[in-house]
């Protein structure tokens, strides 16, 4: 799994690839907390097109991010979730909780 953070024009994008599971929970939190705390960041996007596996802990991590970002008034969008990731997220009704986008 790799986690890469890009910031431009008040928008932060976290680009994930590989297995999104419990083993990366600390790295994931270390990636998003500075963005939640960064006053210049107004919105957070998670690019998931290269995520090929998600476990339930990953869903928990996304909920933690969602709540922390909500406290800071920063919307979170999930981008380009792949078939497997998309199916796992839909079980928990993520399309009604997060802004789900498909774009390049």
């Amino acid at each position: 799994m790799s986690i890469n953070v890009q910031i431009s024009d008040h928008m932060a994008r976290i680009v994930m690839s590989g297995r999104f599971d419990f083993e990366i929970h600390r790295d994931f939190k270390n990636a998003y907390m500075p963005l939640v705390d960064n006053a210049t960041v107004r919105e957070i996007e998670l690019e998931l097109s290269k995520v090929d596996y998600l476990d339930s802990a990953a869903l928990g991590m996304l909920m933690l991010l969602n709540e922390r970002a909500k406290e800071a008034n920063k919307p979170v969008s999930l981008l380009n979730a792949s078939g497997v990731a998309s199916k796992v997220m839909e079980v928990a009704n993520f399309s009604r909780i997060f802004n789900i986008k498909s774009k390049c």
Partner: protein
Amino acid sequence: MELVEWNDSFSVGNVLMDAHHRIFFEMIKEFSKYTGKNDQESIKQRMEFLLEYAAMHLGAEEKLMLKAGYPELDGHKAVHDAFVQELLSIKESFDKDPTSITADKILQIMQDWLVTHIMGSDKRYMPYVQRLQV
């Protein structure tokens, strides 16, 4: 331990809270696979994560009840606070002496509390939050 699967009977009438609860059950199930392995650090990390998740969820639920004008919020919050204190106490014991309680027992306590709490306390706020957006 006998694992519980979330189903519609657990619904509290709010999409976000239902998702939180469902994921909580799923994580307990997932983490129960590790309790037989003798890897204390791995178990400890998972317990800490569940505690963080539980605190996040309970806080979000309290905000929702406040927004919905739920009249029993104070009593409900007291039940949450007592549960968090119980979890912190269990974690402290586990950290000091991992043989004092099994990881399986900790997951069982969490799952039992979750089932009882959703079906009892949480169901009472259902009519108040049903009309709210996520």
